[in-house]
């Protein structure tokens, strides 16, 4: 904890969990899709389902899906901006078993046909807990800079990634692997202490068997 966790974050109101956290969840999905979103179908569970309108959670999620940060003043107008940009969105209530009360499941379609599904919860103070990406179980909070490395489960891939990070002087605080099927698509979630350089991400991206590398910055 540092002094800016108390005097901060700078954010769009009214609630760190219902707006700031929701923007960040949307943004994670946006980052994973990596192309212009044309359609967003959002399912909300628990208290999100009941209170999303009064809190502006709908605007916050759509703003995140459009790539905005949680202090972007356009969040207030995000639904109108989405209409202007031709982003079609829908909200529905969904009972997700055993999910945190503020859970959203976001399904995106991109202009070139890419799709992704992200499930996560806003767990307070603007922090999030992402639990599922494209059907793969993950677990990261966004409290630390987090690298998500989508890759093919092939021998040497993890070693190559972590070695490269060690070489660049990046200290790994937490590492988790999710591998639904041996040899198939898998994801490493790596929480790091320091800032992450764009050049590190680019270098990791071109390693063999790495499909994509996404950085989710800490608040």
């Amino acid at each position, binding site marked *: *904890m*540092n*002094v*800016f*966790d*108390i*005097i*901060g*974050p*700078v*954010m*769009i*109101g*009214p*609630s*760190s969990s219902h*707006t*700031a956290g929701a923007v960040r969840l949307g943004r994670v999905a946006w980052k994973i899709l990596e192309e212009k979103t044309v359609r967003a179908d959002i399912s909300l569970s628990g*208290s999100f389902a*009941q*209170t999303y*309108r*009064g*809190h*502006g959670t709908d*605007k916050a999620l759509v703003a995140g899906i459009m790539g905005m940060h949680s*202090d972007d*003043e356009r*969040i*207030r107008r995000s639904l109108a901006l989405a209409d202007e940009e031709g982003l079609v969105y829908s909200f529905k209530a969904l009972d997700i078993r055993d999910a945190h009360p503020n859970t959203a499941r976001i399904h995106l379609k991109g202009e070139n046909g890419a799709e992704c599904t992200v499930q996560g919860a806003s767990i*307070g*103070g*603007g922090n999030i807990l992402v639990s599922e990406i494209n059907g793969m179980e993950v677990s990261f909070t966004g409290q630390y800079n987090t690298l998500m490395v989508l890759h093919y489960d092939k021998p040497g891939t993890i070693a190559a990634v972590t070695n490269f990070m060690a070489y660049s002087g990046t200290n790994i605080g937490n590492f988790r692997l999710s591998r639904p099927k041996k040899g198939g698509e898998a994801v490493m979630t790596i929480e790091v202490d320091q800032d992450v350089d764009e050049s590190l991400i680019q270098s990791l991206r071109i390693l063999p068997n790495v499909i994509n590398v996404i950085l989710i910055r800490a608040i």
Partner: protein
Amino acid sequence: MLDYNSIAAICEAAKQKQTTISALVLSDQAEQMEIPEEKLYERMKKSLHVMQEAVKEGKNPDIRSTSGLTGGDAAKVESYAHTGGITGKFLNHAMARAVAVSEYNAAMGKIVASPTAGSCGILPGTVVSMLEEGRCDEHAAVMALFTAGAIGMVIAAKASIAGAQGGCQAECGSASAMAAAALVELAGGTPAQAAHACAMAIKNQLGLVCDPVAGLVEIPCIKRNVSGIAIAFTSADMALAGVESKIPVDECILAMRQVGDMLPCTLKETSQAGLAATPTGILLKKQVFGEI
């Protein structure tokens, strides 16, 4: 390095180094975060500017929250403040600032959570008031936010700053305690006096429950930001007058934690009791969610 586990220890360190809490905390944070002091100062200055902008925007009479439940009261308080009211122009203008920022937050405006969005009007209501009423310069106001931040860090470590965990004493109570210490520093008081002001502010909000109508950060949150600044100002003035809190501040924080733990879940942000569960509270909730 400071460990932010005890306000007494921070005051003692400031006394030994013959410096203010803010200067001590700024240099410590620079060391801990491995970022130069000037950069941290600049970042804090930006936060102060966000607060000032929110004060200005929030006074717009047409401002309304997303739910439609609140908005427009800051403008009323602001125009009344010119009369001096009962408590004088200074406090009335400060009240207008606290309402303005809280209403702006509810209207999806840009604010600084300090420590939370629900209590975001309290530091602007106090520290920005000192600045805008000519009681201090910008540098002092920025520094005072470091003092406030340090108090908040100790409360977060030893008790809580989340309504869902500790009730509203943890949000508006903490913000008010942070503001009280910052005000003492701004008025030229000692670190020990800041700690006493902080203790008095906590004592005055101990047990405050979190019971937001319809689960929205509006009713009663906005008005609690006003009582939060009033308590901060009076606690600071008491401490500056030489009044001491018989219960040391760190023990007050532990009491806050104990009380927070004992509060039932229904009074910790779940909107199942208190003001949220009054007939009018329930009616407003139904209105907001389109059930009537």
